[in-house]
């Protein structure tokens, strides 16, 4: 963490919040320092998983006909994702519903927990979103070949196009297929990172203006932070939704490669 010195009283360090730090001192022997280390990232991953488990365990405990508040939250999420899988990926994709539900709840909770002040935003790290996206990409590709065999390659061969155009289209389709995990992961990570960095920049303005004007000047950036925070809440939910719906789209390609 940077501590302000005389020369850089107003210096803003918007990226410091993403630093992965050890909470348990240094880990293993030299060269293996990462082993046995408990970082803030691991802490917030654990909190995310516990929060999801708490919601669904508490929500499904009563199973009342007239749902309690927590039960209806769980039911709404379940129904929302169920309908999305059914609509976007088709009826026969329902057997992959648990996986997609897990993805959605994990990303949603990670995004929302990251908005708690002084918390750590795990989904703003490309390392985390990259693993999720690679998981989806490899899973969908392997699934496509298992279910369809070599017919899966028809995904790249547009039958309805003129014959001369087909090889060109095949190359483009192939590139766009392999770019999927990149865009899928960076969309989520970059959106979260940019939003949190903007919040931090405005917070830096508030501090600087409070010092310069002895207080009242800080009102403008604080109002701006409040507005940005509302936008970030929306972004957190929308990005979780977009990640999930794209997973459904890719899954549909694997189940029905013939367009």
């Amino acid at each position, binding site marked *: 963490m940077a501590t302000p010195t005389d020369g850089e009283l107003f210096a803003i360090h918007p990226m410091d919040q993403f630093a992965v730090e050890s909470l348990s001192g240094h880990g293993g022997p030299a060269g293996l320092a990462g082993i046995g280390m408990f970082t803030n990232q691991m802490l917030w991953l654990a909190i995310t998983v516990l929060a999801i488990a708490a919601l669904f365990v508490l929500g499904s405990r009563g199973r009342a006909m007239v749902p309690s508040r927590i039960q209806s939250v769980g039911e709404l999420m379940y129904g929302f994702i169920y309908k*999305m899988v059914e*609509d*976007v990926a088709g009826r026969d994709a329902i057997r992959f519903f648990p996986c997609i539900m897990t993805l959605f709840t994990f990303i949603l909770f990670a995004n929302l927990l990251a908005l708690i002040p002084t918390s750590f935003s795990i989904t703003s790290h490309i390392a985390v979103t990259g693993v999720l996206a690679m998981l989806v990409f490899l899973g969908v590709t392997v699934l496509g070949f298992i279910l369809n065999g070599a017919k899966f390659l028809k995904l790249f061969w547009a039958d309805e196009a003129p014959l001369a155009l087909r090889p060109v289209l095949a190359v483009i389709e192939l590139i766009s297929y392999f*770019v999927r995990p*990149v*865009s899928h992961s*960076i*969309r989520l990570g*970059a959106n979260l990172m940019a939003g949190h960095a903007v919040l931090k920049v405005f917070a830096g303005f508030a501090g600087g203006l409070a010092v310069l004007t002895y207080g009242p000047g800080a009102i403008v950036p604080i109002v701006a932070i409040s507005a940005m925070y509302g936008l970030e809440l929306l972004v957190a939910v*929308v990005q979780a*939704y*977009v990640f999930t*719906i*794209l997973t459904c*789209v890719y899954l549909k390609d694997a189940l029905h490669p013939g367009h």
Partner: protein
Amino acid sequence: MEGDIAAMGAYLGAGFSAIGMGLAGIGVGNVAANFLSGALRNPAAAGEQTATLFIGIAFAEALGIFSFLVALLLMFAV
């Protein structure tokens, strides 16, 4: 000195690649605007198409993300 010039080029390139994000913004705005004008003509059919809207926005946004990727590569990898 030579390294300074190379670093300047990399940072300038990273800055220029931010233009791509603005262009992606135009694309996303187009998708949303066309959806809205269609939805206002036929509100009954709009609800089912929100999923399509988000898919369209996601694909339009993906190319803006690549400009961000270029900026990251220029700043940290080159």
